């Protein structure tokens, strides 16, 4: 039907401008890609800027291997929550209960492991089940009874905080068995000959590198097999180099201290897994569909209630996991654990590109948003900025990120 001869124009180049040199096309392609994913690239660039600034201000302390390790440990639980929160927000909802649920699961873990000396792997499993049950009850109320998620989870926030205090009788409970502690503070074990670096971390880093590069190449091949337009060769190489450099840097930094924290491994698996689900699984697509336009999704046969239910159930499980990590890291369950975690997770999602009305956002975005907040926290701690000013600055960062996005959208819209 179409008489277009410009079908082979590379993806992002505007029609009619295909005749230029390949360099011109490359630039256009990069710029086009940047424009379309402004929010995410914008935040990635902002994150880079923040890192560089604090690196200078702290006289190089920020990127010391020891501090990078710390940064991961300090922020892991917020990042875990942010992944789940991103899904909830994409679906067009909100979950205010995760901070309290985190504390509650921590308390439950303490009761099982400390008071009843239950074997820690079994207790861990039970805790995840408790999280799933809590999430599914809230999910049921939101999805099937139609109570607004704000109300349901606000109630959950009060409820789980109260239950935490009841469980702990207002006291702090600890210490936890070694096995669980490793989840919060532990590093991968030392193996092999003595080098100046952590061997296992290096190996893992290399394995990751090989995997990523192979994956990218395979992906490109598949695209060609389906005779789809692929990005030009130089751009592809540029992307590969950037990815390799990033993976190598982080690996070397971690390997020159105690190695990769165990929680980083957990987090890595979550990011890859959830990223894949949101992009490639039918379930993930349905979450975007109901958040983007609920009536249209319904009329397309998407089982909106079921999807909403599972999104909340999932949030419950992730909140339980975060609760275990917090408890393990502090080596105690406290009634005040997890305070304001829900707000940090929500802020991370919005900084990372989520929209109040739902339908947009990525798991990677939530991680980037969480890291922006994490680096701000850590950097300001290093500079001994008080928590009072830290709050002010984090608030401004959130406003700035979302404000920039709104401004950018309006500019391109009109």
């Amino acid at each position, binding site marked *: 039907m179409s008489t277009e001869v410009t079908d082979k124009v590379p993806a992002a180049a505007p029609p009619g401008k295909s005749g230029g040199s390949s360099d011109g096309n490359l630039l256009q392609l990069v710029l086009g890609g940047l424009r379309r994913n402004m929010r995410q690239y914008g935040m990635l660039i902002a994150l880079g800027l923040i890192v560089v600034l604090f690196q200078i201000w702290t006289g190089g302390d920020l990127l010391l291997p020891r501090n990078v390790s710390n940064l991961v440990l300090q922020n892991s639980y917020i990042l875990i929550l942010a992944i789940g929160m991103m899904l909830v927000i994409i679906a067009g909802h909100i979950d205010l209960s995760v901070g309290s649920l985190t504390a509650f699961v921590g308390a439950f873990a303490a009761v099982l492991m400390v008071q009843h000396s239950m074997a820690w792997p079994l207790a861990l499993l039970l805790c995840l089940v408790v999280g799933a049950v809590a999430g599914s009850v809230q999910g049921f109320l939101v999805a099937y009874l139609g109570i607004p998620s704000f109300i349901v989870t606000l109630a959950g926030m009060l409820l789980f905080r109260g239950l935490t205090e009841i469980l702990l009788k207002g006291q702090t409970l600890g210490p936890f068995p070694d096995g669980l502690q490793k989840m919060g503070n532990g590093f991968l074990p030392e193996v092999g000959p003595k080098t100046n670096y952590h061997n296992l971390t290096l190996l893992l880093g290399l394995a990751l590198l090989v995997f990523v590069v192979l994956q990218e190449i395979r992906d490109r091949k598949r695209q060609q097999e389906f005779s*789809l*337009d692929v990005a030009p060769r130089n751009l592809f190489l540029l992307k590969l180099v950037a990815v390799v450099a990033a993976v190598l840097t982080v690996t070397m930094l971690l390997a020159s201290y105690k190695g990769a924290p165990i929680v980083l491994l957990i987090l890595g698996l979550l990011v890859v897994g959830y990223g894949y689900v949101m992009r490639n699984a039918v*379930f993930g697509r349905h979450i975007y*569909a109901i958040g983007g*336009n609920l009536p249209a999704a*319904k009329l*397309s046969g998407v089982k909106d209630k079921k999807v909403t239910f599972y999104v909340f159930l999932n949030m419950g499980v992730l909140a339980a996991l975060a609760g275990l990590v917090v408890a393990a890291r502090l080596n105690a369950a406290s009634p005040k654990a997890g305070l304001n975690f829900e707000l940090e997770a929500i802020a991370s999602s919005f900084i990372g590109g989520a929209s109040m009305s739902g339908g947009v956002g990525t798991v990677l975005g939530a991680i980037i948003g969480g890291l922006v907040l994490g680096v701000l926290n850590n950097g300001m701690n290093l500079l001994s900025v008080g928590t009072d000013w830290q709050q002010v600055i984090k608030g401004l960062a959130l406003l700035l990120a979302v404000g920039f996005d709104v401004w950018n959208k309006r500019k391109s819209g009109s």
Partner: protein
Amino acid sequence: MAGPVLEMRSIVKTFPGVKALSDVTLTVRQGEVHAICGENGAGKSTLMKVLSGVHPHGSYEGEILFDGEVCSFKDIRASEHRGIVIIHQELALSPYLSLAENIFLGNEHAKGGFIDWRETLRHASELLRRVGLDDHPETRVADIGVGKQQLVEIAKALSKKVKLLILDEPTAALNDEDSDKLLNLILELKKQGITSIIISHKLNEIRKVADSVTIIRDGRSIETLDVRSAETTEDRIISGMVGRDLDHRFPERTPHEAEVDAAPALEIRNWTVHHPIDQQRKVVDDVSIQVRRGEIVGIAGLMGAGRTELAMSVFGRTYGRYTGGTVLKDGKEIRTKTVAEAVDHGIAYVTEDRKHYGLNLIDTINRNISLTALNKVAKRGIVDEHEERQVSEGYRKTMNIKAPTVFEPVGKLSGGNQQKVVLSKWIFAGPDVLILDEPTRGIDVGAKYEIYTVIDQLAAQGKAVVFISSELPELLGMCDRIYTMAAGRLTGEVPRAEATQEVLMRQMTKDKEVTR
């Protein structure tokens, strides 16, 4: 009769890409009830928006004279100040405020910023009595029916010292009894010297209340007739409304000889649906239709005829409260209680409102096309992105969707291209029966032709197509058979050979007589 109170001269109004009004002249005499008549999309509502200042002075060409003075309204307030009040199709009342509060909203009886409740209530009950309502002024709007709400709107208009009252399809959402009440009120107000303009499709209504009628077609005023004259029959009005010739706007189509022996692909029997809120009202009343493979069957009807309601209630009960009827596919009764069931049985419904019900505007062409039939490009719940992209690239080319890539957000496309995405999405779902609801609404002529071609191809492939449209020429050009509906009832079935615009329009405007 008195001289003109309102003159609109050579009004032209252009929206980006569409000329909504190309030359309209309207003269309304003092103290009369003036009807405006025309097909959906003829430009009636746009004209009234120009008059009331919704489209401000300067955004249109032409001249408006009211009471002999040239008017240049910059917003609704300015026109209301002169005594021109418009009551829109969608009522503009705040449901949780009282009748009195609604009547004086934005126009409160207040002293120093504080509401004078005694005066508010006194004045409100006086106005309510004038429109024939005896409800207490402190009743919440949400607690009264749509019919009464319409009367409250009129009371609100009266509070603004209305001289010219404009009613945009006031009875479209009302049952017979409420309609009668409203029409009588219009006559009553006429006696009190209030001039009214009433936009309506219902010819019997026009005969009952109007003194004259202006017919608008394709953005032009065609003629003004004296309703009281014996020459102005319903047929006369109908021929004014439809009188346009068919040129080559449709693909050549050889009607497919439907295999009469085989059971119809889709048959709907005695389908009845009630309004979701106003439970007394039957929106679809005992409708039975059938469509065979390879056939394109039209459903004609004016606004409020119940066509969309019929389609949506069959398609997964997505509209109203089902109260009876069965659906048969290839002669076997099927369940279509959920959208998923309907889709599994090979039924597709392409909505008339693509922006709200058809597309996820913030997502890409790619993902919009694949959504309904994701499992076709997925294995064990995991989508193969490359296959998905290949599929949507294919539709981009065959359907001629004008976009640089399939990763363009659908919201950025033009109406015609958006419609092609919705169609692609449902064709990809691989249905046997396609219900197309106003598939060419709001898109330009070129894109229309492309969509007609696609519909024709679908029928040629042996799909059964139900084609709902308000544009009669389009139905006449495309369909093998046309059903007509009015006020929720089936009022006729016309084979292609016998169908003319006049025949159809007559059946579409049959309001109360039961004719089957």
